[in-house]
């Protein structure tokens, strides 16, 4: 029982990161009806950029508090990358059969993987100073890293911001209108192309932020993108594609199962996650919050 | 016994009462027109009967058997087939293949993995015959995606017909087709259907077509049946002409001889009985 709180905190931590990744994926799908198979690699890209920036500045002798300012670097980089990718690689495929979209984003996945390998090499890149620097707090007799608590907080803030952005701003209205009926929104004067690239950029920002905030506690490695994609997929299957509440709830469920899995049956934790996703799908094919 | 009976069929989409307690019947060997303004519920009714989705409440009886919750596959085996308003064909297959698929499916032959389809001469002969019935034999080897709109419409019906159904639903078989082509298409369809004694329920908006080709007309409005009777009864039904604005109430030319006389007892409602 002592460790329950610790496990719960770990689950929240993981929820925060998964929500950012899956939420981004869901947002992009909700507005544009495309699934970017390279989405996980944008998360990885964010992780790498942040780790690189932090490591670089550390090498220059920058004081640690300053390094925290570099944390969002990964998110910004991922967003920038996304804003370039959408008009060039994705837009030509909206009118074409789905297979081509999937093929082109899969090609993008492979390209990004090797771009990261080219830029940062095959070895893990870490930013652990940021994680160590905050020290730890004593929870029920164990030491728990303060940084993890910060990540959880960031996740909560991000979720709130996102909700406010989508439901309380004018841009959010345009976003929702476009997602519900693209032609109608266009007929009403919404610049759909602009909404698309903006939505895509936000989605990539979220993924990049997920990578950026997790990298101090676990290094950036090649292959983390695909692993993240697979997990994000389970999250949206459970929570429902196109729904942010679904991404949050789904992220929490996956995080809890993963935490339990790591503790009790580490070999088959991925398989157990799939079992749960399969069960949810059988009961509610659109996911818990999905739109049919 | 009626071929098809629906009892108090209900389908709501949220607030919209798409089909609202509908009692709809089709008799053997009759050609029936299903008319009504857009949103009246005609296509939803056809979707329910053909099995695209289940009703919220109500029953569908075909030949006396309850098919309400049967799969599409079972309903086709029982004898219900349909064509589609937006032409639904296998565009990358040739016209012959499109029809042949129905025939293979009917003969439960589509499960055969290890025999060459080309060898089953009986199927191909029949497919060709069906195309000829619909005037499409010259286009047998053409890709379905490359045919003209009129040809596609006919092919759509041919594919459904090749299932040898007892009840055929045709959803706007002449929509998108030029006025000139409508008559030949409808002539072909009704000739085939009548000679095989298949019952056909045709959703149509073109009133000339409706009055010229049908034995009986069912009018739907806002999810319910407004009127049900012979063309003459419907023409003189004030409730119908007022709700369907733009209906030509003038007398279309009557078909000489070939149509069975409209019978009053197919319509329990009689003339002038309006709903809602």
């Amino acid at each position, binding site marked *: 029982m002592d460790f329950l709180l610790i496990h719960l905190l770990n689950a929240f931590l993981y929820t925060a990161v998964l929500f950012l990744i899956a939420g981004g994926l869901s947002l992009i799908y909700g507005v544009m009806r495309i699934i970017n198979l390279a989405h996980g690699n944008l998360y990885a890209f964010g992780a790498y950029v942040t780790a690189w920036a932090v490591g670089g500045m550390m090498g220059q002798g920058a004081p640690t508090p300053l390094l925290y300012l570099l944390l969002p670097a990964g998110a910004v980089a991922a967003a920038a990358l996304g804003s370039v990718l959408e008009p060039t690689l994705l837009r030509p495929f909206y009118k074409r059969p789905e297979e081509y979209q999937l093929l082109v984003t899969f*090609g993008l996945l492979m390209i*990004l993987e090797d771009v990261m390998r080219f830029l940062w090499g095959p070895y893990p890149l870490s930013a652990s100073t940021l994680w160590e620097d905050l020290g730890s707090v004593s929870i029920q007799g164990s030491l728990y890293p303060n940084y993890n608590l910060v990540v959880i907080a960031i996740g909560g803030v991000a979720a709130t911001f996102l909700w406010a952005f989508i439901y309380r701003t004018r841009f959010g209205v345009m976003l929702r209108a476009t997602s519900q009926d693209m032609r109608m929104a266009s007929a009403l004067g919404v610049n759909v192309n602009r909404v698309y690239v903006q939505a895509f950029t936000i989605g990539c920002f979220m993924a990049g932020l997920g990578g950026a905030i997790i990298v101090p506690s676990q290094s950036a490695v090649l292959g983390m993108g695909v692993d993240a994609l697979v997990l994000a997929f389970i999250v949206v299957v459970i929570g429902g594609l196109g729904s942010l509440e679904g991404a949050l709830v789904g992220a929490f469920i996956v995080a809890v199962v993963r935490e339990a899995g790591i503790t009790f049956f580490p070999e088959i934790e991925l398989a157990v996650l799939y079992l749960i996703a399969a069960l949810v799908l059988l009961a509610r094919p659109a996911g818990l919050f999905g739109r049919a | 016994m009626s071929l098809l009976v629906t009892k108090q069929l209900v389908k709501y989409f949220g607030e919209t009462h798409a089909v609202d307690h509908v009692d709809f019947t089709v008799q053997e060997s009759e050609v029936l027109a299903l008319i009504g303004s857009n949103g009246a519920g005609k296509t939803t009714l056809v979707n329910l009967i053909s099995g695209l989705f289940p009703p919220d409440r109500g029953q569908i009886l075909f030949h006396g058997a309850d098919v309400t919750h049967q799969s599409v596959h079972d309903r*086709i085996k029982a004898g219900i087939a349909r064509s589609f308003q937006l032409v639904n064909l296998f565009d990358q297959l040739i016209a012959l293949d499109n029809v042949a698929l129905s025939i293979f499916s009917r003969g439960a032959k*589509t499960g055969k993995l290890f025999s060459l389809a080309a060898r089953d001469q009986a199927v191909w002969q029949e497919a060709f015959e069906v195309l000829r019935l619909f005037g499409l*034999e010259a286009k047998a*080897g053409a890709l379905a995606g490359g045919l003209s709109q009129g040809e596609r419409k006919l092919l759509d019906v041919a594919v459904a017909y090749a299932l040898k159904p007892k009840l055929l639903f045709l959803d706007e078989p002449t929509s998108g087709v030029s006025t000139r082509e409508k008559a030949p298409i409808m002539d072909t369809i009704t000739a085939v259907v009548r000679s095989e004694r298949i019952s056909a329920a045709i959703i149509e908006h073109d009133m000339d077509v409706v009055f010229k080709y049908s034995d009986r007309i069912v009018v739907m409005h806002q999810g319910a049946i407004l009127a049900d009777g012979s063309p003459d009864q419907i023409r003189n039904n004030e409730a119908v002409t007022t709700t369907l604005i733009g209906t030509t109430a003038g007398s279309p030319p009557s078909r000489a001889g070939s149509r069975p006389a409209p019978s009053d007892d197919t319509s329990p409602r009689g003339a002038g009985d309006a709903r809602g």
Partner: protein
Amino acid sequence: MSALAVALDTRSPARVLAWAGPSAVVLVAVPWVADPYQAILLAYGLIMAIAALGFNLLLGYTGLLSFGHSAYFGVGAYAVAMMVKYLKVTSMELFLVGAVIASVLVTALFGFVCVRYTRIFFSILTLALSQVLWSLAFKFFWITGGTDGLRVPTPSLLGVVTGKGDKIEFLAHAYYHYVLAVFLICVAVMWVIVHSPFGKALQAIRDNETRAAFVGIRIRWYRWVAFLVSGVFTGIAGALWVPLNGLTTPEVLYWPFSGEIVFMTVLGGFRTFVGPVIGAVVFNYLKTYAVGYTVYWQLLLGVVLVALVLSLPTGIVGTAGRLAQRWKRAA
């Protein structure tokens, strides 16, 4: 000629044999006209062609894009490796039987889950399931040999020809012909399947799922069977691959390998029967020579895939076909 005869004639087996026959003869002759290295290289190409052929039953003919075919290749490969490790089997025929059984079991299960879903979900689900297998191969390293993999010695073919003696000689001649024989059988079987009523039904499902349902085809069942056949072909390829490679590792279950299968099929042209075969053989040569030049192999693959999809979506065979038609019309 009647219109019916014209329509049917284009699909007769006789025309197929016209180009298939000479090609087969050429392939048979390879070990005697080229050096052993070339024969072995071509053997790898033919093996990948079998995998691509299986994969394309799903993509080209059923309209389902799988990103997880490495799973079935790996299942075939590991089935062989396990048979060597635990059952001390050395017969190639038994290897093939074992691989088929293992593939059937895995594809039946995976397929049952996957075919319930729409295209995007299907694709990601296949990727995800293959990742599950990969992670299992890693974690249960005491069974699968982990990253070190499992060694597989040269097998005996037809109970008669054994690998004792010069290994290169064996691989370049006896084993090459064995692989070629299996390849030709697979091509013939797949050709029949694709031209069967079942194959037509698959294409109908690909073109218009709703209409296929309304013609009386039960969509899920057909997709499931297609999935099964597709996976088994790929599993057979995996089984043939292991003795050639001498070793199997989890790499063969990892997603980039699925990507290669997708790539080679798109390269050759997924809307034709022979496209995947050509694509696989061409890709095999490209990879062998390119890997020597750069470690950024995936980058190259990704860029070419994107370029293909943008400008040459019909692949090599498709584009060649169109050029041939234009040339015919100009002549």
